[in-house]
């Protein structure tokens, strides 16, 4: 049985002029425990909405979402919040560290919503997690004194400190340079694999997406499976489409303005 399963999920909103805007249409997705999945798509294609629905921050307009055998639609708001805390870890593009709190306090923050021993041992657990992401010597450093890469590592430690079953990463390298982004993604992949958590990353960076085992493309609210960087091929954005071409005849890398 899949860890999480979306079946024919739609999400639409009513605009101020009473028109209905469909953000997601008929999305069907199944992710197993420990699997790494990437969803690519341009801005405004519904990537974040999909991630919010997966992470129980938003609810589908129609369709079914089953998380580990539990239909989410039947859960109360409170139960959804609990499942969100217990099962999901979020990594945001802008890191979203809590200002005014040290790295240690940031990582311990999700454990404030845990119960029992985990709650009382939150600082020990947080320190261990920071050590794991290589920031064992920066426990008392404020976020604004950390580099972008370090901040994202703190965010990764925070996402993983409650041992979630699913890590949802929203453009995790979006605010980092290519090199740091690569390092952060390696770390994220590594820790997710270590803990056996499924990793769902949404990104428009094909290099980041290529690290996943399965790839999807979201365009106009429709989710379709794609193959990225098959052996001997590279994938490039051509307009709205990631297109694979043989390495030798790879299309030249196009500039951002040329694509538009």
């Amino acid at each position: 049985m899949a860890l999480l399963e979306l079946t024919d999920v739609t999400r639409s909103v009513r605009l101020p002029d009473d028109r209905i805007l469909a953000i997601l249409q008929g999305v069907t997705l199944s992710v197993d425990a420990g699997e790494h999945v990437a969803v690519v798509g341009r801005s405004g294609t519904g990537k974040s909405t999909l991630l919010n629905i997966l992470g129980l921050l938003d609810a589908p307009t129609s369709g079914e979402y089953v998380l580990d055998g539990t239909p989410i639609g039947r859960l109360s708001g409170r139960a959804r919040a609990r499942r969100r805390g217990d099962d999901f870890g979020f990594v945001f593009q802008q890191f979203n560290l809590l200002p005014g709190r040290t790295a240690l306090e940031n990582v311990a923050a999700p454990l404030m919503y845990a119960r029992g021993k985990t709650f009382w041992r939150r600082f020990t657990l947080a320190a261990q997690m920071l050590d794991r992401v290589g920031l064992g010597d920066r426990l008392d450093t404020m976020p604004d004194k950390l580099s972008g890469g370090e901040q994202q590592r703190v965010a990764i430690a925070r996402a993983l400190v409650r041992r979630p079953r699913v890590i949802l990463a929203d453009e995790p390298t979006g605010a980092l340079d290519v090199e740091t982004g690569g390092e952060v993604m390696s770390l994220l992949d590594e820790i997710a694999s270590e803990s056996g958590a499924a990793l769902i990353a949404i990104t428009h960076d094909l290099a980041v997406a290529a690290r996943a085992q399965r790839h999807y493309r979201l365009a106009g609210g429709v989710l379709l499976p794609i193959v990225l960087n098959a052996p001997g091929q590279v994938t490039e954005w051509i307009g709205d489409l990631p297109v694979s071409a043989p390495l030798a005849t790879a299309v030249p890398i196009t500039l951002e303005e040329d694509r538009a």
Partner: protein
Amino acid sequence: MTGIVGAIVEAWDELRIHKLRVLLALIGVAVAVCAITGITAAAQMMNQAVKEQTERSGGRATTLMVSAYPTGSVAPTGEQYDAEFTQIVERYGVEYASRELYSQLTFRFPNGAQPVQVQAVDVDYGVMRRVQPVQGTWFAEADADRFAPAVVVNEDFLELLGVSDLSGHPTVMLGGKTPVRTTILGVVATQWEGEGPTAFLLYDHFTRWASPDVQYGPVVPNLSLWVPPEMADELTELVRRDMSAGLPGTQTDVYQQGGGFDVLEGGARWVITGIGGVALLLGGLGLVNIALVTVRYRIREIGIRRSFGATSGRVFFGVLMESVVATVLAGLLGVMAAIVIIKNIPVERIFGAGLQDVPPFPLSAALVGMACATAVGALAGLIPAIVAVRVKVIDAIRY
């Protein structure tokens, strides 16, 4: 359990991080609580001061002053008065009673004999009139059995005697038909500038050794009875009846003295409470204002916390608790400040006299102050808490 502890820890963290903001918002609350608590305590102290002053001059609530002046040419003898007074005290089980009479006796001072205003009283008089010797002691029960009289004099008396303190156990000759050496037991403060020498003598010593100045008029003793205020009216009638029957040929008067006085009675109480209330309201409004601004500023943070699994209830309780924890702290500071201020009030300078029974800091005032602070915190936190819960998580994270 961990939910509640977590919410409180979270609230504390928020306060710790936004120290300055919290401090500014809370000054108003702390000052208001300090005012409410302090004013109540000060008023109680003032009440006590006024009460003690009144009791010094007129006796405690309620003192019955009993007198029986002869109307004809034949006056009852001292023994008859004594017998009647004793009967009344025993009959009604009065715990504190004192016979009193004013007279003038001659004492021999280094620069010659001089008449001195003397008040003959019983030992209980000291308690009934809150007599506070500035040196030495007031009379004790055992003093009645002395072989020579003892006196408690005022400062002018001592000065006239050429003595500055009682360390040398000074004595003074009481003149009259049979002069007798008296021991000075204690010294009370001179009541007013130029009061002249005065002395207290035990009533029994007076009857045994004193030779009152006949020119001063007939010596008619009075009786003071300290009775429970609720029984005062009934006893007034009974004592008047008994005295009239027991001492025929006298005009018996019984009147009540030493009523309580409450400066916080009626309007004053409302004015003081009103001022404190308005101050607290202003403090609370400041807090609401700042809390609202902060919640808007913290929308993203609230969103992030929701992503950690914070329920709406937890977010609501968390924001509310921030306000409550803050105002409770402010209340505590306010109460502490009030205690420090009240304990350091120069009582003597403000109220004119030192307090004998300094009232303890009123616990009720402190509790009311704390309750007000907590209530203001809860009310001030309510609006921001509702705003925080209504924040859309997705918007909050993107904020």
